[in-house]
């Protein structure tokens, strides 16, 4: 199943990132093959570091994950917020439906079957669009970041026209990653525990920790709400049965009931659109920023680690001074830690400030768009109600 190119309209969770024309990335289409999605990553560039000015490569979801993890593990980027990795494409729900459709085919009328098929296709399409968007945004954030866009691995990702699987994590490394995450969450306690010298970071830390838990909660509730919305519209369709309730030789009444069934059909479609718009604008927004804030928290963690290292190196230096042994190494070590820490703090400050700006803008854009869409849909359903007058 091919999906036509996603325009800027879909790039909703991040504000327009392709400001810099020297490196423009998009995902014009994608193929869904059984369990896998193959994205076509298309790059247009004026940079000389690339071999060609315009090229495309096929990539899988796992390739994106590899790229993300490589960036995270790069020491140099410790002071940067690494854009969150796109979530795995989730075709579970439409796949279930397709299964049900296949099973129930015998028991349904032709129209019912056709209708369900249509719905199913629409749902597939929606999931598809979502996942393409999320992968695209990831790449675009990288390309618009002054430091990350120059990353060697990023370039390989964009350019290498062979399968990237050789470079991907093998199982052992994955395990390593898992343990790292475990250790990290234990160290989150470390972040909150560390005495902060800088007001800015103190504030940010408090804010982010609190905000994260709230946004996580909101995301969950929004997801629930969206799900309810989606399932509700399923029932309006049953009201099409109304038509059969007629069974009368009363023409006007028959006409009325037919119109009523039509109306319910239209309303159902509108409800469906409302639900998916709400999901795109609100739920996706919250989901994305939840992950983004996690990335920001990761940055804070790294900085806190650096601070802890620095403090440890101080202690080591004091101990060395006491023992009058290995002083130059300890001093050297301490200097390094301090430098690292300062470097980290500086870039972290920059990152966090721009992050906030970005976040506010994205929220604004999405909330405005959501409100406008809701109004539009409500107006559409109103105009679908002309039958009052034929009664």
């Amino acid at each position, binding site marked *: 199943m091919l999906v036509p190119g996603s325009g800027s309209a879909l790039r909703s969770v991040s504000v327009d990132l392709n400001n810099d024309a020297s490196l423009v990335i998009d995902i014009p289409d994608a193929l869904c093959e059984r369990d896998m999605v193959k994205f076509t990553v298309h790059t247009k560039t004026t940079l000389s570091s690339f071999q060609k000015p315009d090229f495309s490569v096929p990539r899988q979801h796992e390739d994106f994950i590899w790229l993300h993890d490589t960036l995270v593990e790069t020491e140099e980027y410790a002071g940067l917020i690494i854009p969150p990795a796109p979530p795995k494409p989730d075709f579970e729900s439409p796949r279930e439906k397709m299964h049900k459709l296949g099973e129930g085919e015998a028991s349904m009328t032709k129209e019912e079957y056709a209708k369900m098929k249509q719905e199913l296709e629409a749902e597939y399409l929606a999931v598809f669009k979502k996942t393409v968007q999320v992968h695209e945004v990831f790449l675009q954030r990288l390309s618009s970041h002054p430091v990350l866009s120059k990353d060697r691995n990023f370039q390989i990702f964009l350019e290498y026209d062979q399968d990237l699987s050789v470079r991907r994590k093998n199982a052992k490394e994955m395990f390593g990653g898992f343990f790292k995450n475990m250790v990290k969450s234990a160290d989150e306690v470390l972040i909150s525990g560390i005495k902060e010298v800088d007001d800015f970071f103190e504030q940010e830390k408090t804010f982010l920790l609190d905000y994260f838990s709230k946004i996580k909660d909101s995301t969950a509730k929004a997801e629930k*709400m969206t*799900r309810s919305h989606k399932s509700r519209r399923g*029932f309006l369709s*049953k*009201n099409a049965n109304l038509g059969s309730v007629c069974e009368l030789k*009363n023409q006007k009444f028959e006409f009325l009931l037919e119109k009523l069934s039509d109306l319910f059909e239209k309303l159902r479609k509108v409800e469906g659109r409302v639900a998916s718009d709400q999901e795109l604008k609100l739920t996706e927004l919250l989901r994305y920023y939840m992950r983004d804030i996690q990335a920001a928290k990761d940055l804070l963690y790294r900085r806190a680690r650096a601070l802890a290292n620095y403090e440890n190196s101080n202690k080591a230096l004091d101990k060395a001074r006491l023992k009058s042994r290995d002083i130059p190494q300890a001093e050297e070590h301490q200097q390094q830690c301090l430098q690292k820490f300062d470097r980290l703090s500086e870039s972290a400050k920059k990152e966090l400030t721009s992050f906030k700006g970005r976040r506010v803008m994205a*929220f604004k854009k999405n909330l405005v768009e959501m409100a406008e869409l809701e109004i539009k849909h*409500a107006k559409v*359903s109103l105009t679908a109600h002309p039958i009052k007058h034929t009664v």
Partner: protein
Amino acid sequence: MTDTAREPPPLHTDFHEVEDGEDLFPESPAAQQPQPASLPALDISTNSNGPKQDSLMDDDPEDLFAGATEEVSLDSPERDVLLSDGPSPAITPITPPTSVIAPRIGHAHDDMFTHSSFDEIEEEEGGDSFDVHISVSDPEKVGDGMNAYMAYKVSTKTSLSVFKQRDFSVKRRFSDFLGLHSKLASKYLHIGYIVPPAPEKSIVGMTKVKVGKEDQSSNEFVEKRRSALERYLMRTVKHPILLKDPDVLQFLENSELPRAVNTQALSSAGILRMVNKAADAVNKMTIKMNESDAWFEEKQQHFENLDVQLRKLHASVESLVCHRKELSVNTAQFAKSAAMLGNSEDHTALSRALSQLAEVEEKIDQLHQDQANADFYLFSELLGDYVRLITAVKGVFDHRIKTWQKWQDSQVLLLKKREAEAKLQFTNKPDKLQQAKDEIKELEGKVQQGERDFEQISKIIRKEVGRFEKERVKDFKTIIVKYLESLVQTQQQLIKYWEAFLPEAKAIS
């Protein structure tokens, strides 16, 4: 007399074409008078409706018809334990109106009488422009503990002459409604009138109320019941025959009503009812009627289909209501969460916008709840009513079959007796012969009566079905319009809320 020239109208005649035998009426009071006296052991004055009864006798002839049924009502509910609507009233010596008219054998009179009285009533109805409005309100809990019950105020506003006043109200409890229904059912169902079914009992619901839980669900239950009772009464009085029924009038007007104990589920009446229902079900399966009238066959099929469709629709509307409620719960939760998020947001404009969003979502939640209520009260209850009504209609059709069966049975019996008589002719037993001849004569009468009963019930059913369909269309139309209006309102409100939110969102900088 115009009717002497007329034969019993063929079954296929459309009711509306037949004229009234208006000349009948002057004659009927005279003919009617002896009847009440011949009916055994009935003292009209024991009926609390005494004074009204006399006035009924004096006024319009069709009230005599109602007066005739009065006898029956005295008998069945209070004497005979409330048996099923089928065989019993017919078996007791006091048969319903048809027997009252029986003496006029061989006349088209009978059907003419009942049918034309029906017509008359309709004309009168047209003239009066059906001005009866009943409302059930002010549910009040009376008493305590398990003996507690809800008393409802039944207010009637009318300009019809059949009522004593124009504007009056009484207090009734649920079992009173059930009592009214069972009285009407025993009087009318087996002659073919579609008596609207009463709202259902609900032991769980009532127990909650009795126990005194003042929570949301028991309030909802009371409201549901109140509205169902109101619809029930309105449907009952919309029926031109039932409106004039003294039991109905008594129900609406009398301040005190004898307690209808026979409606209790666990009374002996209740158990007898259940037994009879089972017997009926068995009978239904065994009686195979030769349907000579295509109209009935078609209509029966039609009602079967309608029943199935309505049930399906009802079920899906109920699940729609459920889902809307779930959506409302989830929206409320999200609203709270969004409010918290707004609080922890440090960018002021965004914080304000998020709080606004939370408010909007809360309002939307309220909207969803209201819509769910509308879905429920307007649509779902209507569908439930009609599912029950269709059951009553099917019951009426079943009675017709039973009536046919009775007729056939007496025919068979007659045949047997004739054979027996023929045999007796050759023996030398004059007294037995005479007895046989007497029996045959009696049976002949019965057969003719059976045939008449059958024709009559068929006629009445046709008319009733026509009326029912008209009412159905009207009902559905009204409800659908109301429902659509509520949908439109919801959408408009949604627009208002989001439009109010939009500037806030745009103000983020």
